[in-house]
C-alpha cells in the first residue's frame, strides 16, 4: 500500500512534468497561469530551473502591495518553477528522488545511503530553493567541503575499516585470490564501455569509462572517490548505480552462478578453516598498508584510511576510538555523504543518455565480476585438482559485503543442505573489498594521480 502511494507521488510528478513539457513546447500560456507568466517575465524563464530569485528582486522591496506581493510570491513558487521552461526536468528529478526513497525504505536497497541521496535529490531540484547553490546552499556546502575534496569517502572508509573483520580471510588466505579475480568486473567493464561507445550517442572518455568501471568493485565509497576525481558530473548516477546493484546482488548473482557451475561443482565441500590468532588480526592492516606503500601508493588514501580504522579496532586497547569510528564517525559521514551525492543529481547532469549507459554498464560490471570470480575458481580447480574450491565462493569476491557471501552460502545449501560455505565466502568477500581498492588504485596510478 505504501508502495502505491510512493509510486503515485512519483508518477504524478512525472505526469505533471509531462504536462510541463507539453506546455513549454506549445509555448502557450493558459489563462489560469497568466499572472504567473507575467511575473515570470521578470524572472528570466530561461534560467536553469533550480535558481534563486534574481538579485533585483532582493533590492526592490520598496513597493510591496498585496497585488505585487502575491504576484512575486506566486512567481517564486515551485509550481511556477515547474511550469517554467525546463521546469518539468526538475519535477522529473524530484520524482527520481521519491523513487530512491521508495527503493531504500520499502525495498530495503541500502537505505543508509539511498535515503540521504534521495532526499538530497529532491531538495536540490526544487526551483528557487537554492539548496545546491554557492556559496551557502546546504547541499552545495556539503558537496564542496565534503565530497569534492574526497574527505567524506575517506572518512566512511575509516568507519568501514573499524567495522570489518578479516578473521575469515586470515583463516583461509587462498580465498583472497578470488577477491582479485572478481576485479574482472572492473576491468572487463572498461572494454564494455568501449563497446558501448560504438553505439551512436555514447562517447564516454577514457576517464569517464574508468569511473564507471569502478562500479564493478561493488564498493560505494571507492566508486564515489574515483568518480569525484575523474568524472564529477557522473557522480550521482555512478553512486546510485553502485548502491542499487549492491542491494540487488541477491537477484543479479544466482542465475549467473547457476549457469556457470555444474551440480557436482556446487556440492564441493571445503576443508575446515584454520584457527586465527588475535595477533594476526592486529598485524593484518599493517601488512596491507605496507604493501600498498611499497607497490601502489595511489591506493593509499583509501587503503590507509581503511587500515587505520581496522587497526584501531583490532589493536584491542582503543575501544573508545573504535566505537566512535564504528558509530558516530561512520553515521555522520554517511548522512552527509548521501546528501552531498544527491547534490549531483540535478536534471542537467542526470537526464542524459549517459545515465542510461551507466545503469546498463553497472549491471554488466556486477555480472562480469560474478562470472570472473566463479570461472577463476573453476580454473584453480583445474590447476590444483586436490583440495578443490567450490566455485560458488568465487562470486563473493565482488565484495558487496555481506550480501554476496550470503548468496554463495545459500546456493551451496540448495545443492547440499549440509554444505556451509559462509566462512569461506566471507573470506573471499573481504578480500574483494581490498581487491576493489587495489583496482581503483591501479586506475588512479595509470592516470598519474
Amino acid at each position, binding site marked *: 500500500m505504501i508502495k502505491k502511494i510512493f509510486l503515485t507521488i512519483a508518477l504524478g510528478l512525472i505526469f505533471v512534468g509531462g504536462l510541463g513539457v507539453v506546455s513549454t513546447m506549445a509555448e502557450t500560456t493558459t489563462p489560469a497561469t497568466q499572472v504567473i507568466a507575467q511575473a515570470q517575465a521578470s524572472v528570466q524563464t530561461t534560467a536553469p530551473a533550480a535558481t534563486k530569485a534574481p538579485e533585483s528582486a532582493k533590492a526592490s522591496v520598496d513597493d510591496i502591495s498585496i497585488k505585487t506581493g502575491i504576484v512575486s510570491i506566486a512567481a517564486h513558487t515551485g509550481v511556477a518553477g515547474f511550469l517554467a521552461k525546463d521546469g518539468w526536468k526538475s519535477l522529473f528529478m524530484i520524482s527520481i528522488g521519491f523513487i530512491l526513497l521508495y527503493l531504500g525504505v520499502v525495498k530495503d536497497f541500502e537505505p543508509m545511503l539511498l535515503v540521504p541521496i534521495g532526499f538530497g535529490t529532491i531538495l536540490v531540484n526544487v526551483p528557487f530553493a537554492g539548496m545546491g547553490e554557492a556559496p551557502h546552499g546546504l547541499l552545495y556546502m556539503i558537496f564542496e567541503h565534503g565530497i569534492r575534496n574526497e574527505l567524506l569517502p575517506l572518512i566512511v572508509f575509516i568507519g568501514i575499516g573499524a567495522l570489518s573483520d578479516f578473521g575469515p580471510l586470515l583463516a583461509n588466505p587462498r580465498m583472497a585470490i578470488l577477491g582479485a579475480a572478481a576485479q574482472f568486473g572492473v576491468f572487463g567493464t572498461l572494454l564494455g564501455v568501449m563497446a558501448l561507445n560504438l553505439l551512436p550517442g555514447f562517447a564516454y572518455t577514457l576517464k569517464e569509462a574508468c569511473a564507471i568501471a569502478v562500479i564493478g568493485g561493488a564498493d560505494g565509497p571507492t566508486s564515489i572517490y574515483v568518480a569525484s576525481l575523474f568524472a564529477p558530473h557522473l557522480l550521482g548516477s555512478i553512486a546510485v548505480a553502485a548502491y542499487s546493484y549492491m542491494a540487488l546482488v541477491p537477484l543479479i548473482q544466482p542465475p549467473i552462478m547457476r549457469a556457470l557451475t555444474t551440480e557436482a561443482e556446487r556440492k564441493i565441500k571445503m576443508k575446515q578453516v584454520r584457527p586465527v590468532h588475535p595477533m594476526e588480526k592486529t598485524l593484518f592492516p599493517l601488512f596491507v598498508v*605496507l604493501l600498498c606503500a611499497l607497490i601502489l601508493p595511489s591506493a593509499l588514501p583509501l587503503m590507509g584510511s581503511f587500515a587505520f580504522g581496522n587497526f584501531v579496532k583490532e589493536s584491542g586497547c582503543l575501544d573508545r576510538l573504535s566505537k566512535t569510528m564504528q558509530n558516530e564517525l561512520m553515521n555522520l559521514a554517511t548522512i552527509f555523504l548521501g546528501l552531498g551525492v544527491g547534490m549531483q543529481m540535478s536534471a542537467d547532469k542526470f537526464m542524459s543518455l549517459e545515465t542510461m549507459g551507466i545503469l546498463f554498464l553497472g549491471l554488466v560490471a556486477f555480472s562480469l565480476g560474478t562470472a570472473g570470480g566463479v570461472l577463476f575458481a573453476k580454473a584453480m580447480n583445474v590447476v590444483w585438482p586436490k583440495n578443490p574450491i567450490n566455485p560458488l565462493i568465487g562470486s563473493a569476491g565482488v565484495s558487496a559485503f555481506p550480501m554476496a557471501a550470503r548468496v554463495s552460502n545459500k546456493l551451496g545449501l540448495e545443492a547440499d543442505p549440509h554444505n556451509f560455505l559462509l566462512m569461506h565466502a566471507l573470506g573471499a568477500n573481504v578480500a574483494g573489498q581490498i581487491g576493489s581498492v587495489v583496482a581503483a588504485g591501479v586506475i588512479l596510478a595509470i592516470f598519474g594521480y
Partner: protein
Amino acid sequence: MTWMDNFMQATVIMCLGMGLVFLFVASLVVLIQISARVLSKYIEEAAVAAAAPSAASGGNQGAIVAAIAAAMKQHSSK
C-alpha cells in the same frame, strides 16, 4: 584519438590492472602465511584453548561457530 586507440588503451589498462591486483593479493597472501608461521606456536595454543570446554578467553573460534550458527538460523528463517 580514434575509437581503436581508446579500445587498445582500455585493454592495456585491463591487463595492467588485473596483473597488479593479482600481484597485490598474492603478496598479501604470502605475508599472511609468513606471519601465521611465525605466530604458529601461539596459534596452536589458541586452538587448544578454544577446544577446551570453558572457552573463557573469547577467542575468535567461538565467534566463527557463532557466525555459522547465526548464518544457518538466518537462512532457515527466510
